């Protein structure tokens, strides 16, 4: 299998789904020109202005439009370049899309995909570097996928588009410059199945999105010290594959969750609480979170490096936990 660029894979997955299902269409700022990160390249030429729609800077109403289209039989995809901008659309995401099924007593569904990014480490400062997955995580009714490789980008995108519920896909923009193996042709990755990236016996390291490569690097360097780390990428936060996580903790008896979002109220807080409820007796030391201390993301690279977890700080945290 040859390596394919992550963003080419994203565009390809959308293209294949648009070919497969004429109900699928795309809206976003600049998508006709291929999107600011070129994750929609070639789609306009293939599908034209009805199905590849440039929008004004109206995140609130564009997401609302997607809700309206979804509940009346279409399958919209909305691109919101940075998750920071999704805050403008949170009413439609959290009050409307997430609740349509429920409020209607199961009579309606809002099958739609919001593609947005999360990410940091590019000196983009406080309003272009957030990882807001924990915010979406709060609202019942939204599925959340965070593909961390070309392979998962395609498989999860296809599952998300075919899912009958609203799905948020968060693509860390660090990945846009990467490439990896992704088979041609149709395949899906189920929402709700974690991936064990590396098996190990000493500690479970759960890494979210762009923290996955950092976690793998940390596991590599710790292997040289005789520490055997099990790295898990949940791939989706909702549904969350608690079974894989709990099984792993029952084996390793330790858990570290690493994420690029704020520590307080973060994804790690919730996952650890659930693990404590389900597997307290198996824990040999307090489970721990590595996340952004409760600050916004600064601009200067040395400050940004300080607040964000990386392979070195992950390795250090693990050494401490195993001491």
């Amino acid at each position: 299998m040859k390596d394919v660029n992550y963003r080419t894979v994203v565009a390809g997955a959308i293209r294949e789904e648009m070919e497969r299902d004429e109900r699928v269409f795309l809206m976003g700022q600049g998508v006709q020109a291929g999107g600011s990160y070129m994750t929609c390249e070639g789609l306009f030429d293939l599908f034209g202005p009805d199905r590849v729609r440039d929008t004004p800077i109206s995140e609130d109403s564009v997401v609302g439009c997607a809700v309206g289209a979804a509940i009346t039989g279409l399958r919209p995809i909305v691109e919101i370049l940075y998750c920071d901008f999704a805050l403008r659309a949170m009413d439609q995401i959290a009050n409307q899309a997430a609740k349509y099924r429920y409020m209607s007593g199961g009579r309606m569904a809002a099958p739609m995909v919001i593609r947005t990014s999360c990410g940091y480490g590019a000196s983009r400062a406080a309003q272009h570097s957030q990882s807001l997955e924990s915010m979406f995580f709060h609202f019942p009714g939204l599925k959340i996928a965070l593909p961390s490789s070309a392979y998962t980008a395609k498989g999860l995108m296809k599952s998300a588009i075919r899912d009958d519920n609203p799905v948020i896909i968060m693509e860390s923009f660090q990945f846009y410059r990467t490439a990896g193996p992704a088979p041609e042709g149709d395949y899906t990755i189920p929402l709700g199945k974690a991936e064990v990236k590396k098996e190990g016996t000493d500690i479970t390291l759960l890494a979210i999105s762009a923290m996955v490569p950092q976690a793998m690097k940390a596991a590599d360097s710790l292997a040289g010290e005789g520490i055997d780390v099990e790295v898990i990428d949940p791939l989706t936060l909702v549904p969350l594959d608690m079974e894989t996580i709990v099984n792993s903790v029952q084996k390793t008896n330790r858990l570290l969750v690493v994420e690029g979002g704020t520590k307080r109220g973060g994804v790690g807080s919730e996952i650890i609480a659930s693990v404590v409820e389900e597997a307290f007796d198996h824990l040999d030391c307090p489970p721990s979170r590595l996340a952004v201390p409760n600050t916004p993301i600064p601009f200067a690279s040395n400050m940004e490096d300080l607040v964000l977890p990386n392979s070195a700080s992950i390795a250090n945290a693990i050494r401490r936990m195993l001491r």
Partner: protein
Amino acid sequence: MEISREILIGMYSKMLLLRRFDEKVVELYRSGMKGLYHLTAGGEAVAVGVCSALSQDDYILSTHRGKGHYLAKGGDLQAILAEFMEKQTGCNRGKGGPMHIIDPSVGMLGANGIVGSSLPIACGAALSAKLRRSGQVAAAFFGDGAANSGVWHECMNLAGIWKLPVIFVCENNFYQESVPVSRHSSIQDLYARAAGYNIPGYGIDGMDVSAVYEAAVEAVQRAKRGDGATMLECKTYRFHGHSEADPTKGLRYRSGEELAAWLEKCPLKQAKARLLERGWIADAELEAIDQRCTQGIEEAVNFAKSSPDVPAEWALKDVFTDDQGEICHEGC
């Protein structure tokens, strides 16, 4: 346009149904029915005039004040009352209540508890109709207060650039709760704003069901021709307080004289007078219409009362279509 006898009688009957329904809701609410009820009374002509211009498969999106829109669109009296009374037979299976009435079977895509938020959903339904080439239109009801939400302006622009088959129906009842339009809006004729979005906008007497109907028919035709959106600003008034939580009929912030003057313009009174003046209806028939309304409502109340309560466990269903995805799958 000449409105036929049949249509005017039909609209009068619908308006009366909405009025009698409001009265029943007040009665049930006072005897313990739960929920927050924003009533239609005073605004019947807008709901009925617009919905009478729509077909069954056209869409409406509504507001917190959405019961009248639903019934005017052909909604099910039994289903809505059962919903209010927390019954299994309720249109939202007990999960919506008065601010979230949804019934796709008559194109009612949703009332909404968040002011302004149903507007983009209407645009999306209209976009969907356009992409599917179904010929449907979407009507979005909203208040004078909603017209100052950012999303309203976004929607007007979107409908303008995408030529969406949508009708923006502003129910300008001069108040956003206690705040008068003179204090919340930079302009008093809200329809004038439509020009800024390249959408035709009209000021309509919202107490005259015929005027509303005529304007709506034209807007529907424009939408179906592919010529895009229309904004209808219907000046109207609410006869009750903002919700039934205010039993003073809003007299804390508006005068009794003002209310009395608007009661004179009651849309039912006007329609009835027109029917009589034209000799289109006799007293006996008016009486029969009223009886049918009251009887239908009475039957619906009985239906709701005899329906089984929603089982509490239903609270845990319908978060997702596949009812999975919850994080605590065990022990919670």
